[in-house]
């Protein structure tokens, strides 16, 4: 079975600073996908970024980027120039290729301080 671990239950950072959220996972498979989801106070889960395991290049979406280390099974999210609207729960998730089930980590509550 696959597992996803987020070791930082809570983090806070000043507005405009850069913050990195950690995620590690465990799998014996080679083909899979990794995701970061954001859940703001509205409770609406929003996909932030995804990474295909077969791609060596790290995914980026505007201020959001990942550091994907396949050998280390690590998938961290970097948020640059953080904004108040980034305040949310962030979940790391894993999905095997050909399998639609997402396995989530326990989440990191991120607070951006004005």
């Amino acid at each position: 079975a696959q597992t996803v671990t987020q070791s930082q239950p809570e983090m806070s950072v000043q507005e405009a600073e850069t913050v990195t959220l950690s995620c590690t996972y465990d799998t014996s498979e080679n083909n899979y996908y990794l995701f970061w989801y954001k859940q703001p106070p509205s409770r609406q889960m929003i996909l932030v970024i995804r990474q295909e395991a077969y791609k060596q290049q790290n995914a980026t979406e505007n201020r959001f980027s990942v550091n994907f280390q396949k050998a280390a099974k690590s998938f961290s999210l970097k948020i640059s120039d953080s904004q108040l609207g980034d305040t949310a729960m962030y979940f790391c998730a894993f999905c095997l290729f050909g399998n639609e089930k997402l396995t989530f980590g326990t989440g990191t509550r991120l607070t951006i301080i004005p």
Partner: protein
Amino acid sequence: DVKVTQSSRYLVKRTGEKVFLECVQDMDHENMFWYRQDPGLGLRLIYFSYDVKMKEKGDIPEGYSVSREKKERFSLILESASTNQTSMYLCASSSGVSRNTEAFFGQGTRLTVV
């Protein structure tokens, strides 16, 4: 605008009641999911369905059942509600996470069993 709609945002039920949580998606997605979200535990998969009348157990199916009579609707049933089923319930749908699409989530139902 794509949408996954859960019938209630907040629900209070009594111990022993049969509870129905309804989820409707308007994207013609094959796959639908029910997750349970608890603090410190992240999202855990209860059941999922990859086609009408098809279902598979997730990681924590005990005490729950599901129904999918139509493609757009996926119901979660608590046969006899208990206080340990007090939680946030999230519905999701996808056409194929592993086919470079994303899963879309409803806004969640916060269920309290008293």
